[in-house]
């Protein structure tokens, strides 16, 4: 209950500060759309040269991409740990966080919230709708709930991986360049993983399970029955990776000594 009220108070403050810089907000949206456009252009241009990608059609791949954008937007809104090392370890902000009576990770998540990232889900839904209509997909009433569940699962997988990466800062002097590169790798989970060598497929499924954010859950809606097992496993993987991340985080905080700045 206490955590919930802290959450809403942070949210209210957040809205106030954001609305102070409206022009900046607009450009931030635009730059988010731009990032999505880069991938979309890649897909569209590539499918201008080939009708099928390992048996998957353009619209199926577009649908997977659209789906991926939704959990990714949720992740972006709440787990913005991009500059955790610089801001909290190097500049010593972590010391301040640790004096407060809420869990340190929860507080950092609230402080670094970027609710406007949720808007990134809109192009995703539009792309899904477009591809869905062209593929004449049919849906049941309960698919909406499954959709929400899979989206949350996917967002937690992302969160788990990036929180784990952030905890490296507690143990070693890693700078931020791992994170941008991880963003690159995450995008490979959007393609049908059967195109990759089995080593990469294994990595994307079990070590850095980004396939559970894109192709696996989307396969359920594309009615690819051979992938259903993986699709329904998404929430489990999400819970598992998030739990591991929180454990790593707690271990890291115990080791944390501060920079003395």
């Amino acid at each position, binding site marked *: 209950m206490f955590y919930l009220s802290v959450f809403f108070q942070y949210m209210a403050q957040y809205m106030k500060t954001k609305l102070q810089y409206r022009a900046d907000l607009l450009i931030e949206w635009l730059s988010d759309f731009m990032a999505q456009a880069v991938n979309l*252009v890649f897909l569209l241009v590539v499918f201008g040269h*080939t009708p099928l990608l390992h048996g998957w059609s353009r619209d199926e791949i577009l649908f997977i991409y659209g789906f991926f954008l939704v959990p990714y937007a949720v992740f972006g809104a709440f787990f913005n740990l991009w500059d955790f090392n610089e801001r909290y370890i190097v500049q010593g902000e972590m010391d301040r966080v640790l004096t407060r009576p809420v869990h340190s990770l929860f507080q950092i998540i609230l402080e670094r919230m970027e609710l406007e990232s949720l808007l990134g889900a809109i192009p995703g839904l539009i792309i899904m709708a477009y591809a869905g209509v062209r593929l004449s997909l049919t849906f049941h009433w309960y698919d909406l709930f499954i959709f929400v569940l899979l989206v949350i699962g996917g967002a937690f997988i992302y969160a788990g991986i990036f929180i784990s990466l952030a905890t490296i800062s507690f143990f070693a002097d890693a700078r931020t360049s791992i994170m941008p*590169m991880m963003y690159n790798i995450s995008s490979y989970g959007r393609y049908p993983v059967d*195109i990759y060598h089995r080593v990469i497929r294994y990595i994307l499924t079990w070590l850095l399970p980004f396939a559970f954010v894109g192709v696996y859950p989307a396969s359920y809606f594309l009615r690819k029955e051979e992938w259903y097992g993986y699709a329904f496993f998404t929430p489990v993987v999400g819970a598992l990776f998030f739990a591991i991340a929180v454990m790593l985080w707690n271990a890291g905080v115990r080791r944390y000594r501060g920079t003395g700045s």
Partner: protein
Amino acid sequence: MDKYTEMIRIRFLMMLAYRTNYYTGILIYAINIAAYYFLWSAIYGDKPSMQGMSLGQMTTYVAISWLSRAFYFNNIDREIAMEIRDGKVATELIRPYSYLGMKAVQGLGEGLFRLFFLSLPGLLVVSLFLPLQFPEHAHTWLSFSLSLLLSFIIYSELNLLAGVVTFFTFRNEGLLRAKRFIIDLFSGLILPISFYPDWAQQLMHYFPFQAISYIPSMIITESFQGVAVRDGLLMQAAWCALLLLPIGVLWRMAKKRLVVQGG
């Protein structure tokens, strides 16, 4: 001149200090290229070539594009923006060197580090597994090196330009981010320019972006031959010179209206 070379050395050493970064960097570069290789294999399917490039050439193209990016990429636009916001730029400006020149050599120091310690070892690892095709002619390597250096200059000039714009707008993180995506897309990093539809290719001729990634990668895969190599290099050189102009003008204006917001 000494102080600039010294700054390159210092930046290089600063990068070297972060060891974990370094090992994971090589690994992630390798995974990245491998994933692209499989993606392109699937795209090629049974086709022997697309837009005049074989799968081997395409793999090399991708590997070299990312290698080049490690060299030319830098964050000096963000650094300038941050120094303006923190008010540090005021002390920087009274120091006995050219502020923008110093930023550029800092970028060079980082780029050299990433090239020799990150992406080159990464490329060696990758070439053990994937069919990369490297040219045999010495002149191809020479043209490529020259082309890569010009890429760095153009990219850094664009970054300096974006950084100087911060003097007028104060907050422009969104803009800097958008610039990065535009460069990734239109420079040929993600897709060779020859894959785009004709109208898009025509349009891209008017921008400096393809001089950043497309030209050096086409040179090293020997997709450009003879006159095309020369024209590519000339085009890069022209952009290097041309971009100095807006930077100079904006920088003079910026210094006049510098507002230090506390600090």
